[in-house]
């Protein structure tokens, strides 16, 4: 690590300071705020832990190579502000941006039996799980939530590619079933964001059985006459594509997302020839009739609101900034204050971070 200079140590210290201050601020508000600090702190922690390490202050766009300031990038939903390339976004970050005021309630997912096959390759499956949980801070590869988008109530499920490549096992199946059940119980539409390398091999046949299980979930929505909208994000492949991710009433993909059953490498090996430009990318699928739309992440919320409100026979959405829901006002100011505190320190870091990269 030749680049490990005292400057980095300084940056880490600033990051740590940023983390410390707003918490102290919260604590000063006294006992009445305890529930808030209990509730809000994990969120703040996650916001700051991402900024602790210097390499996260700046991200390089893997498409155009532009160096992007982290805050600018996350403010644009991890879409490159220079070339429009869509980078990965966690399920939690996506929900915070999607739901009005960043407010959503998680829907409980029944916990499946752990390591059902007692699977062991070079590592034990439970060890791989623990590592993924530690890396992501998430329990599993799918998050289910309910809330409002543009004051339109929905259930949303989002697959997290950062958790074991978003792979579909019993938990993901349970999550989709729970999401569909909640949608049916409350009469709300389901929006599902897919992202997966495929099935969770460590669950063997039981991962494969999530294809029929999740199809049953889709049928529950169909019977209840509720919209099921799939947003395919990069990458969505294998058994996931060949089940719930292709069964939406409306199929929307993010730009340039890889969407396929068999991956391009496998196909190139099989047919032994070069594949066409853009093969298996969202725009290619749109052209071949496999999708309804390709929509930028930054425009996705507005589009979902518009489509859902028509399918649900609701009046058109109100354009412009809506007042935040009442419940948000209790929590949001503190979080925003925390955010501001942190960013105050950041411009000063900019030059230093540039120095490090050079």
């Amino acid at each position, binding site marked *: 690590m030749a680049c490990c200079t005292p400057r980095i140590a300084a940056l880490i210290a600033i990051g740590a300071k940023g983390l410390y201050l707003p918490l102290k601020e919260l604590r000063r508000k006294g006992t009445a705020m305890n529930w808030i600090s209990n509730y809000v702190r994990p969120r703040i922690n996650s916001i700051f832990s991402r900024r602790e390490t210097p390499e996260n202050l700046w991200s390089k766009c893997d498409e155009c190579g532009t160096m992007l300031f982290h805050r600018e990038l996350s403010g644009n939903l991890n879409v490159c502000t220079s070339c429009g390339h869509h980078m990965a976004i966690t399920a939690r970050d996506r929900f915070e941006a999607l739901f009005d005021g960043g407010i959503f309630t998680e829907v409980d997912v029944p916990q499946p039996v752990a390591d059902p096959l007692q699977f062991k390759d070079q590592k034990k499956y439970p060890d791989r799980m623990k590592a993924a949980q530690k890396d992501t801070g998430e329990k599993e590869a799918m998050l289910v939530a309910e809330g409002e988008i543009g004051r339109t109530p929905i259930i949303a499920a989002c697959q997290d590619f950062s958790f074991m490549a978003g792979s579909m096992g019993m938990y993901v199946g349970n999550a989709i079933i729970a999401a569909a059940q909640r949608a049916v119980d409350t009469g709300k539409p389901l929006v599902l964001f897919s992202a997966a390398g495929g099935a969770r091999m460590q669950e063997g046949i039981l991962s494969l*059985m999530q294809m029929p299980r999740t199809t049953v979930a889709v049928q529950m929505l169909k019977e209840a006459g509720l919209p099921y909208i799939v947003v395919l994000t990069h990458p969505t492949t294998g*058994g996931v594509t060949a089940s719930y991710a292709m069964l939406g009433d409306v199929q929307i993909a993010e730009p340039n997302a890889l969407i396929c059953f068999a991956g391009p490498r496998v196909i190139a090996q099989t047919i032994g020839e070069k594949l066409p430009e853009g093969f298996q990318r969202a725009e290619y699928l749109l052209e071949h009739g496999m999708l309804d739309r390709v929509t930028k992440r930054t425009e996705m919320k507005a589009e979902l609101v518009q489509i859902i409100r028509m399918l649900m026979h609701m009046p058109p959405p109100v354009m412009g900034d809506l007042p935040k829901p009442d419940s948000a006002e209790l929590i949001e100011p503190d979080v925003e204050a925390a955010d501001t505190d942190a960013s105050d320190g950041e411009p000063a870091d900019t030059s230093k971070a540039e120095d490090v990269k050079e």
Partner: protein
Amino acid sequence: MNYLDFEKPLAELEGKAEELRAIARANEEAHVEDEAAALDQKAADLLVELYGSLTPWRKCQVARHPERPHCSDYLSNIFTDYTPLAGDRGFADDHAVMGGLARFKDRPVVVIGQDKGNDTATRIERNFGMARPEGYRKAIRLMEMASKFNLPVVTLVDTPGAYPGKGAEERGQSEAIARSTEMCLQIGVPLVSVIIGEGGSGGAVAFATGNKLAMLEHSVYSVISPEGCASILWKDSDKMREAAEALRLTAQDLQKLGVVDRIVDEPLGGAHRDRAATMDSVSNTIAAMLDDLQGMDAAALIKARREKFLAMGSKGLAA
């Protein structure tokens, strides 16, 4: 006879016995019958030993045996009046998928299956049992017809997986598989499946999502081939034995996991060593599975199918 690698000692014994008999036929003076009989006995003992404890990987090999009875063999042996129906009405007829109307023990049914082919010409024609979207769409069409005319559906599953090709992807391989699985779940008639060889991943699920599932004793059903799993998780495709073990893809493990309802015993040495006996056992199993569903109406069949899959896997190996 085509021998698998682990059957090499068996091949030697059976070869020697055959040689002795050839000598005896050429020369009446040679008295080798006792010797040949002894070799036969040895070979028989070895067969019992080998097949009494097949490892998961060896089961994969048996399941893929080139002489194993294929879908077309079952169609001509346990069904009558088989009337193939072709095409997806959109693009093509996929020869990897056979299907149509037939009678099973006199009762009209719709039968659908993948066929791997029995020689070079038919293997190529059948694309080694790897269906393209047209194949799944043909299956969807046939299942819909079965539901409309209240005919039970029998599926015979034998595929390495869906075909990974450029055209297949362009024409919506994923969507076709997803819709076929969906159709399996929504038809209001009995759907029974038998995995007769290889149940390869999503390509198999699209046919096998039924009310009842049986597997031949040495067939396999898996989310990924052991070679594929080995190359991803072990970074070494030669670790297929370990992967086959870990994946729990044998009929016996799958029954423990609650994925498979019945196991069809195979003749000693595998289905290909006694085709007639295999046909009988599969026929009896299909009849028994259809009997199990006797008297259930459309709603009850659909409900039972859903509940079966929703509950599946909830107990792991302890099921």
